[in-house]
């Protein structure tokens, strides 16, 4: 074992070490929170796609994401059903409608409409009997609607497009990127509520491919029979929906800028503290050179200090980010931190701190070991 001058020097001045670690930690927390919240929002953008059991989605041409649906003739579903390898296919309407609240206010609600919800695992988490939707003027509403629509109970009535309807169930986790609350309603009833827009029309056709059938082959065949529609696999449709929000709205650029600023803060803090520390230890580094040490030996010291600061800062920053998760969840903000992202931030933090320490390298290279003879 060798004497670890880097670690001992770093920990010798505890206040400086604390400041360095907190600088890195805040940068790490900032990155985790910004990216985590963004990933949480993006998950909302595709949560319905990912929970539904559809393998393929038939959409009108150039639909940019799942929330912005355009309608097309519902009879196309027959063409899809006739394609070999299709186990089942069904129309799905997704539409925005006005809901009147007890306060007299009106809000928008995003409504998913099918004939056989249970066949498609939609919704996936709910209280009540989804089959009852087809038996009358009923709908289910997601719990997250409380924030926008106020509290509600199963059995309450609300007006949707001026039609009095009863809430017969409460869903959970059914959310959208737009934050508009989600509701579930029978397909035929929705067409009746909005005949001008929806009579004989659908927003999507969802497709389940038969066991053993090749999804790509089935998709190709549907495309050939429906040249004026798009056909996406589940993964493609989710990616396209996410990509719309990231690329087309500037949210992605916003996130990149925030991450950049977080990294910049970290680099500046670490560079400043390491450089100040180097200046204060200049005579010690001169001594290292005088007793035979090379610039490389001193670079190793600075490098190790940077890595220690990075690891400590990462640990504290990660703990802070994870500590904020339950608080954010209370505000319905989901912080998603995947393991790969943890690894990326860890590597990024180490690289950031090493880069910051290089500011001191130039100073070290110029140290005259003869300074050890100066009083």
């Amino acid at each position, binding site marked *: *074992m*060798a*004497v670890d*001058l880097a670690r*001992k*020097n770093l*920990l*010798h001045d505890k206040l400086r070490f604390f400041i360095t670690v907190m600088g890195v930690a805040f940068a790490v927390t900032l990155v985790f929170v910004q990216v985590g919240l963004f990933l949480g929002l993006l998950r909302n953008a595709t949560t319905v796609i990912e929970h539904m059991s559809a393998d393929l989605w038939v959409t009108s041409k150039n639909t940019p994401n799942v929330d912005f649906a355009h309608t097309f003739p519902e009879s196309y579903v027959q063409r899809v059903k006739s394609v070999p390898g299709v186990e089942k296919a069904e129309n799905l309407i997704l539409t925005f409608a006005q809901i009147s609240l007890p306060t007299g206010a009106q809000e928008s609600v995003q409504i998913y409409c099918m004939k056989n919800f249970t066949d498609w695992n939609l919704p996936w988490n709910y209280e009540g009997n989804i089959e009852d939707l087809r038996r009358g003027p009923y709908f289910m509403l997601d719990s997250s609607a409380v924030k926008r629509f106020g509290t509600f109970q199963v059995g309450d009535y609300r007006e949707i497009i001026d039609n009095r309807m009863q809430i017969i169930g409460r869903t959970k986790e059914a959310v959208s990127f737009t934050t508009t609350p989600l509701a579930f309603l029978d397909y035929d009833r929705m067409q009746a509520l909005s005949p001008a827009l929806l009579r004989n029309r659908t927003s999507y056709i969802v497709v389940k491919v038969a066991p053993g059938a090749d999804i790509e082959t089935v998709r190709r065949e549907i495309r050939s029979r429906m040249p004026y529609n798009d056909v996406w696999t589940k993964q493609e449709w989710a990616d396209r929906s996410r990509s719309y929000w990231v690329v087309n709205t500037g949210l992605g650029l916003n996130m990149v800028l925030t991450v950049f600023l977080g990294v910049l803060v970290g680099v500046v803090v670490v560079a400043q503290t390491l450089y100040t520390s180097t200046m204060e230890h200049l*005579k*010690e580094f*001169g*001594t*290292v*050179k*005088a*007793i*035979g*040490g*090379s610039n490389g*030996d001193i670079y190793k010291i600075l490098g190790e200090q940077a890595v220690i600061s990075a690891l400590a800062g990462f640990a504290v920053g990660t703990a802070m980010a994870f500590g904020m998760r339950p608080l954010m969840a209370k505000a319905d903000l989901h912080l998603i931190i995947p393991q790969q992202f943890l690894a990326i931030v860890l590597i990024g933090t180490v690289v950031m701190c090493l880069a910051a320490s290089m500011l001191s390298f130039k100073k070290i290279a110029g140290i005259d*070991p*003869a300074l*050890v*003879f100066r*009083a």
Partner: protein
Amino acid sequence: MSVLEARDITKTFREGAETVPVLNGVSLELHPGEVVALEGPSGSGKTTLLSIVGCILTPTNGSLTVNGNHVDPKRPERLPEVRKKSIGFVFQQFNLFPALTAAENVEYALNVKGIRGREAQKEADRVLDAVGLGDRKNFLPRDMSGGQKQRVAVARALAGRPPILLADEPTANLDSHVGMQVLEMFKDLAKKEDRALLIVTHDPKVRTISDRVLKIEDGRLV
């Protein structure tokens, strides 16, 4: 047979457009077990000479042989290796690492020389016992007196058994009594271990422990 031989060393520094001579043809030899004092007024070139024989600076002209190896002034990148193998330094300001204990200060110097682990610990124990600090090994410099710090510095210089010991004003920051104790101990250890010891000093007490006294004035030995 000398362990250090400097011949006709000159050193000039540039100050703007001017070239300032600091050493003018200095020659000296150090032999194993010999204690030599180098005296001179401020600005006479003592520290520059110490830096050159200590392989910290290269001479402008002249030749230098350290422990039988010619030191090429055109290859300054090789100087750290010579310092590592052949020279132990003691500084006026002690220059201990404040974050390291006495033992660690010595061990770190040994680590730089390539000696690690148990071997470094044993050597550190040996030299710290030799300077009378066996019971202060785990003390940080801030918890030691000036004399104790300089003893640690002496132990660090002795560690790894370099044949040449160079000391720059080792008593300047010590009171007279402690300074004398440190000098006596340093001389005894150098002689016992057959090291050549060159002490740059203003302190007349150093004469009393020296085998030879060199005087330098205006960059020349007189």
